[in-house]
């Protein structure tokens, strides 16, 4: 398998890879940002530890705001603070923020183009036993449709940290999506990260696996498996869902002739839809979307759920085998 040498992925990628939740990157990124920029403030709605905003709170208690269980109010307060020169980070679970406070996000933040950053934790089905109410599988859809809003889904904690810092340094509204569970560390400090720039992690010419978030790892594992089966799969980390990297996606599509998208999210409205839009307008080719198939999740362990709902490397391998057969 042709790993992109310029990318410098974790050397233990397929060995004894270390696992850390992506939300740790949010917590660490906030602390670093707070040090550099005294205008950075963090808001939280009774989930300080789960969102890792407690790390910022411990260091900069005077710049931390506890709003109680009140996500709508939190989003509005953040907008007001942004309009007064602060750089607020709104922290909660993705199901509640941007779930419950979407109207405030739309008007007070996006329409106003206020400099608010939203950290949505415990996204995806991997939040597991808490069940469907807590599994954010629609947050990419409801954010990527909003004008002015940038949407980023980091693939591991290191990228999560970089994305948090980059969002804090950029102007305008940004939504950052994080997971609860420990997941493999794919990248290193030297791995490039730029908002809006999808990265080709592995080269290939039979099929392109375009993935986001924790599914980037599953795609890399699948590509390795596919190599044994004689199929050369490219792996693209599409961490920025909006603005989507039309150039990179079109290039790999041209090279491979078939695309599979992989996300821990509903296939309707998420990465799959975003990539489909790009391909339909630029280079229509056979495509398959892997993700939640228009159904709610349920309680269970993350591994059980990934298996049942067909979001893992073996499903990717299966779909890749099928799609290469349909290529002309």
């Amino acid at each position, binding site marked *: 398998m042709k790993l992109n040498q310029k990318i410098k992925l974790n050397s233990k990628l397929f060995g004894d890879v270390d696992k850390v939740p992506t939300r740790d990157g949010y917590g660490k990124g906030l602390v670093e940002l707070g040090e550099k920029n005294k205008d950075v403030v963090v808001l939280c709605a009774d*989930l300080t530890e789960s969102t890792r905003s407690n790390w910022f709170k411990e260091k900069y208690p005077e710049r931390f705001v506890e709003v109680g269980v009140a996500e709508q109010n939190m989003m509005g307060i953040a907008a007001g603070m942004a309009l007064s020169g602060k750089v607020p980070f709104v922290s909660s679970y993705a199901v509640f923020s941007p779930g419950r406070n979407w109207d405030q996000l739309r008007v007070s933040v996006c329409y106003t183009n206020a400099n608010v950053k939203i950290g949505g934790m415990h996204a995806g089905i991997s939040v597991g036993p808490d069940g*469907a109410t807590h599994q954010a599988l629609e947050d990419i859809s409801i954010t990527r449709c909003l004008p002015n809003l940038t949407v980023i889904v980091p693939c591991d904690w290191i990228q999560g940290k970089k994305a948090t810092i980059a969002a804090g340094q950029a102007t305008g509204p940004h939504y950052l999506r994080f997971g609860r569970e420990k997941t493999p560390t794919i990248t290193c400090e030297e791995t490039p990260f730029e908002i809006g720039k999808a990265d080709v992690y592995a080269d290939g010419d039979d099929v392109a696996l375009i993935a986001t978030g924790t599914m980037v790892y599953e795609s890399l594992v699948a590509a390795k498996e596919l190599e044994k089966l004689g199929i050369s799969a490219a792996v693209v980390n599409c961490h920025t869902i909006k603005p989507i990297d039309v150039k990179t996606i079109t290039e790999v599509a041209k090279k491979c002739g078939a695309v599979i998208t992989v996300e821990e999210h509903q296939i309707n409205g998420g990465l799959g839809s975003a990539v489909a839009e790009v391909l339909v307008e630029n280079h229509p080719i056979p495509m398959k979307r892997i993700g939640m198939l228009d159904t709610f999740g*349920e309680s269970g362990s993350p591994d059980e759920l990934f298996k049942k709902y067909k979001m893992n490397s073996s499903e990717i391998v299966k779909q890749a085998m099928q799609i290469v057969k349909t290529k002309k």
Partner: protein
Amino acid sequence: MQFKKITSEKQLKLIANSIRQNIIKSLVEAKSGHSAGPLGMTDVFTALYFNVLKHDPNKPEWPERDKVVLSNGHICPVWYATLAQAGYFPVEELKTLRKLGSRLQGHPHYWEPAGIENSAGPLAQGASIAIGMALAAKMNKAKNRIYCLTSDGEHEEGQFMEAMMFAGNNHLDNLCFVVDRNNIQIDGDTENIMSLEPLADKYRAFKWHVIEVDGHNLEHIIDAFEETKTIHNMPTVIIAHTIPGKGVSFMENDYQWHGKPPTVEQAQVALIELEAERKEIQEE
């Protein structure tokens, strides 16, 4: 046939004790979930399902039944354990809590199993759902009552305040809220995080009848529920002063037990404590 009221306090206490033991057993098996809230609200659930409610576990869809809506969905282990104790489904099923394929979801799903009257998890949604049920009952001239169980923390939500205002404004006297006033939420004590006091006055200002009660005194809880049936033209709230983690010494009044289950060893200690309490009740 309507569920037969249990009036003996001793019998009710024994039922509450069984429910607490089953909460511990289901949580330790699940390896995740919430301990403090369920144990704290066990006496209220016992009073409701074994004395106050008009219901029939053999006919859960009975149209004339009183309805219970749980707004703070995370305390569902006590709802499941109470429904099982009342005969809605086998007690053994409690062991499937939070497992793949189980009806007992980490946060409740409507009618899984029968008797679960609403889906819940995101705080404050149940308050509005209960109001909708009370409003529809009024339109249908139905005689049943709607009970909505809520937590103190969720009163911080905008939706909750909207619901309070609506119910008072619309004189929903077939509606009763119970507040689990245990003074804790995830980040700490409610009065430090977002002060709710004076809570009773807030309800009065929104045109509610207010009753405050010791949430562990079964006789007083039942009296409070009886009083709600006599109030006309306004909804009633029972502010139940409870001890989070009630019945398990190392869990009581500690907010850290909000969202974690006991370990196997901790569960053993908890069950020993509850068994000792059971003996005491039997000897009373």
